[in-house]
């Protein structure tokens, strides 16, 4: 079958694959972490791994916002809906994520809580306008792409004097998470995650630009290539990473120049810094507490901050005991290393968040990769 255009062109894919095979040094292994769930998805959907030589490995990183949200924050959202009786609005992916005791927002909804799935913060604002007698909370999650829309909604609520609207803010920052993966003591002690370079996120970078990764490439001496989502983008980016590794370089290169610039979307950045400030620390699922890795609402907008408006009981939450999501998000383990994978835990009845989100590594393995990964002998032998 002829692929539709040059980005899916099989000939071109073969050429890039041949270049990778020719340039990858057979005496070394290359471990590249893709940070973005979109890349994980593309790698599996198109079988990019099959086009790679045996010594080029993808490490699936923590780049899915649903997967990295700690259970306690989800429990808080459930509490907002159940105990405080608000209308809780959130993106669809959050609905099925199991919290403590497998309790999810969809269960809360079935039990009578008013939880509504929205496509956009615009919808949440609309619900607030239409229900002046009710408190409406937008359960905000996501990386740098979903943060600007939350900022716009907060500003709109303030401008309109929409007093029954607030945001439960869980926005997190990509560059600090990548740094953390490289410098956290666990990783240094265990020495398990071997990463030779990163595929930088594409749409996140369209907002923040490629510039924030410069410091990081320099500081940690790891190459970063900002990669588009299409399979050929991923392959081309791998080639660029291999070249950097071979040359001993560690630079930020941009493969996705058709969308990403150095400075990113300046207007969006300005809105975000007007409304949000850094949190001193935030707990990520799988990464633990990461300093300055998340945003909270500035005091100027405190009236619209659900964490200030509602009292949330701080409780210790428990991850499902055998779920290996924390190690998987660090790239330390593969989904198939989890006892529950494909038996108790499937996309139909997920135990952990990595199986809930279609961008999670477990879901991707289940949907596309599980058969190949059940014969991992070759891969293991190459390590």
């Amino acid at each position, binding site marked *: 079958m002829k692929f539709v255009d040059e980005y899916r062109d099989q000939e071109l894919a073969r050429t890039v694959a041949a270049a990778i095979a020719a340039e990858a040094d057979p005496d070394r292994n290359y471990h590249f972490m893709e940070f973005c769930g979109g890349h994980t998805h593309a790698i599996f959907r*198109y079988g990019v791994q099959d086009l790679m030589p045996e010594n080029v490995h993808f490490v699936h990183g923590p780049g899915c916002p649903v997967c990295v949200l700690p259970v306690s924050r989800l429990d808080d959202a459930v509490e907002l809906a159940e105990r405080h009786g608000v209308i809780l609005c959130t*993106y669809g992916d959050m609905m099925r994520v199991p919290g403590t005791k497998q309790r999810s927002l969809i269960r809360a909804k079935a039990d009578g809580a008013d939880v509504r799935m929205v496509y956009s913060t615009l919808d949440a604002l609309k619900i607030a306008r239409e229900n002046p007698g009710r408190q409406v909370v937008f359960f905000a999650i996501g990386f740098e792409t979903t943060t600007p829309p939350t900022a716009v909604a907060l500003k709109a609520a303030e401008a309109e004097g929409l007093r029954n609207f607030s945001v439960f803010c869980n926005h997190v920052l990509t560059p600090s998470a990548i740094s953390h993966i490289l410098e956290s003591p666990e990783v240094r002690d265990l020495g398990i995650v071997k990463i030779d370079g990163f595929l930088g996120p594409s749409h996140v970078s369209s907002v923040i630009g490629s510039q924030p990764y410069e410091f990081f490439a320099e500081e940690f001496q790891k190459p970063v290539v900002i990669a588009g989502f299409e399979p050929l983008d991923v392959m081309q980016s791998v080639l660029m990473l291999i070249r950097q590794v071979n040359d001993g370089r560690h630079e930020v290169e941009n493969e996705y120049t058709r969308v990403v610039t150095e400075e990113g979307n300046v207007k969006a950045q300005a809105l975000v810094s007007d409304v949000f400030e850094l949190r001193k620390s935030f707990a990520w699922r799988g990464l633990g507490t990461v300093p300055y890795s998340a945003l909270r609402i500035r005091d100027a907008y405190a009236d619209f901050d659900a964490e200030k408006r509602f009292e949330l009981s701080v409780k210790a939450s428990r991850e499902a005991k055998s779920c290996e999501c924390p190690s998987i998000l660090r790239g330390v383990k593969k989904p198939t290393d989890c006892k529950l994978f494909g038996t108790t835990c499937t996309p139909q009845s997920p135990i952990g968040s990595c199986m809930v989100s279609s961008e999670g590594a477990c879901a991707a393995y289940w949907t596309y990769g599980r058969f190949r990964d059940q014969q991992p002998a070759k891969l293991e032998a190459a390590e």
Partner: protein
Amino acid sequence: MCLAMPARVVELLDNDMAVVAFDTVRKRISLALVEDVAIGDFVLVHVGYALHKVSVEEAERTLRMMAEAGVLEEELEEISA
């Protein structure tokens, strides 16, 4: 939820809003995050907001890829829901 889809701007509304066309689906989105958008431009839309402008070629490429990968329908469903 990280996917963004290109769409063509077909109408400009007040308050930084616009109507865009995804395939046959029309949707009101916000232009608050972008500048200088005109009717006929393509924008990359994520959770109801245009993140930036994209060229026609980039838009077509992305849409074709999404269609072929089978994600276009899922996304359209989510958008029109």
